[in-house]
């Protein structure tokens, strides 16, 4: 199965890219945290990192499916003073 990985803001800069496409054997059970490990090569999600699956906030334990878009980003700082 295929999973689209996306990084944003300071995390995108640190990873040196906007994302990647991850391909894994169909039989495997894949969580958001496992997607992070395989995509980044880092064992743990950096503290405070937020995750989304298909543009919905998701916990690291959340299971992903074929075709899902998984995004990782730092705490948000929108709005104004």
């Amino acid at each position, binding site marked *: 199965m295929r999973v689209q990985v*996306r990084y*944003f*803001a*300071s995390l995108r800069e640190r990873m040196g890219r906007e994302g990647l496409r991850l391909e894994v054997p169909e039989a495997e059970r894949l969580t958001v945290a496992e997607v992070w490990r395989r995509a980044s090569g880092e064992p743990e999600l950096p503290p405070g990192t*937020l995750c*989304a699956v298909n*543009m*919905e*906030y998701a916990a690291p334990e959340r299971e992903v499916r074929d075709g899902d878009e998984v*995004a990782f*980003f*730092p*705490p*948000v*700082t*929108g*709005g*104004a*003073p």
Partner: protein
Amino acid sequence: MSVRVRLTEAPFDPWAEVAEAERARGAARAAHGAAAVFVGAMRDRNEGVAVESMFLEHYPGMTEREMARAAEAALVRWGAAEAVVVHRVGEVRPGEALVLVAVWSGHRAQAFEACREIMEAVKHRVPLWKRERRADGERWVERNTPGRMDPAGA
């Protein structure tokens, strides 16, 4: 219940936007007489350092969705009628409007609470990230200012 959200890369005039929404409301003006509005503009200083400009990154699709969801949740929770949320993205200069949240309701308490709740969601849930260009270099803004505070002398 009506929610309208918009992202814009171009500068926008928040008061013209509210006036336009008000005109479009027509007869609803006499039914929902209370409007609470918040506008945040870019400041020229942050933590004492001059800020020359700012880049607002977003997650196209998810950003709009979270804005709309926050506005709907606040209208339902407070029983308010209508919300307009506009957020700037891309390059912004000091003094330009960053965000507009406008809520219309039958009573002032509902309008105030819903407006404030939407603003807090924009600060804490909506995927938007600020990168400041300052005299001392570029940096990502990593902390939010507090949404509640005590009065002077408390």
